[in-house]
């Protein structure tokens, strides 16, 4: 877990150093979008570091489309 935390800190710092000079010159709209995506990545980052298996897009697709998708495949499958 320590290795995961260190690697995440290194990645975030690298991104911050790269984008910071540019962000200072940008409008509020860009900063809001940037922060929102960074927060999304933080959610996934926490999930990755502590192996929490929090829900994300794959789970949403599974809940919303899993059953109809399975039925389509089952209907077209020939019983072996």
């Amino acid at each position: 877990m320590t290795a995961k935390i260190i690697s995440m800190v290194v990645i975030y710092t690298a991104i911050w150093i790269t984008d910071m000079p540019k962000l200072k010159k940008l409008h509020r709209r860009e900063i809001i979008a940037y922060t929102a995506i960074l927060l999304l990545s933080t959610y996934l980052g926490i999930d990755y570091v502590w192996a929490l298996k929090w829900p994300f897009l794959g789970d949403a697709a599974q809940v919303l489309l899993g059953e109809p998708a399975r039925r389509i495949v089952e209907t077209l499958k020939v019983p072996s």
Partner: protein
Amino acid sequence: MKAKEQISSAQMSVILLCFMTGSSIVNIPGPLIGYAKNGAWISLLLSLSVGMMLLSCILYLYRKFPDLTFIEYSRALVGNLVTILLAVPFISFQFHMTSGIVLDIGLFMTNSMMRQTPLVLFIFPIFFVVALTVRSGIEAMARMFFIPIVIVLLSTIIILLLSIPNYQVEHLFPILPDGIRPVVLGAYFSYGFPYVELMLITMLLPYVRKEGRPNLKKGLYIALLVNGFFLIAVTLSTILVFGPLAGERLYSMFEVARTVDLLEVIQRIESLIGISLILTAYMKAVITLFILNLTFTKLFNLQDDRILVFPLALTCFLFSLQQIEKGGAFWINAVTVIHPLWATFAYALPLLVIVIAAVLRKNPRY
């Protein structure tokens, strides 16, 4: 002021070929043959026809709005709210695609070549290079992709030719042992991956130079046909070599290359296919991440079109790890069962809505 990036129609066609062939050339045959058995090539013909229809819809919209991306003409035709509603599945599937393409490279490496190496050591550097390429812009991408795709297609042709001694024509028969249903299932699967994904090029077409636009239609159709030809050739080759066992081979083209043994000199050339998979998947990941970034940029009307690249790449990287941490079965189910339906809601449905709106609405506001 920053000049708008532009590419030629030929470069656009190469990008489409890379996008459609990337990762599918190695990943498609195994599961497709598993579904459709010996009729897999018919499934590909069916899904290719659907791809052609989607391309004609895309070109219809392009004729009407040559300078706008999908998000921009969606906004002009159906308004901001509906565009945002359509963009939710559109963006979610792009996240799924980008993370899945790179995850596939990692899984391929850990399943077939370097079993003891942690997956993250493959995925992270690939995402890093993908993000850097996306930040370099579409002009650099278009110039760069030509040679790798030629290498990939030549490697594939070499493998197909060198495998001829291992071909057994009787493996092709019976063509429809279980009737038409498995073929339809195969067509449904190959429609979801890669043909419906074609819709994403609606985001890239405005980058084509004005003078190149008359040749674009022909170039895109040729690119799609070349892609269809290679997918069918690779699928047929897999069936010809492995017969009924073809559907059980995960990276079937890699396995086909493994069987090549010519005069005891030309052998162990599967690394050619390994390199091809990595190259094509890298190119496809670059195009998908570029489009994901562009979608956000256009949706939120951002001035800077590069600022989101690194955060988006990081999100996709973590999403890749998250998908596989939920287990191999979760990932296989997402790719083989949910993927085509998700793609329909994310890509085909919005395209259909916008085409209908473009036909009905005579004076869009933009």
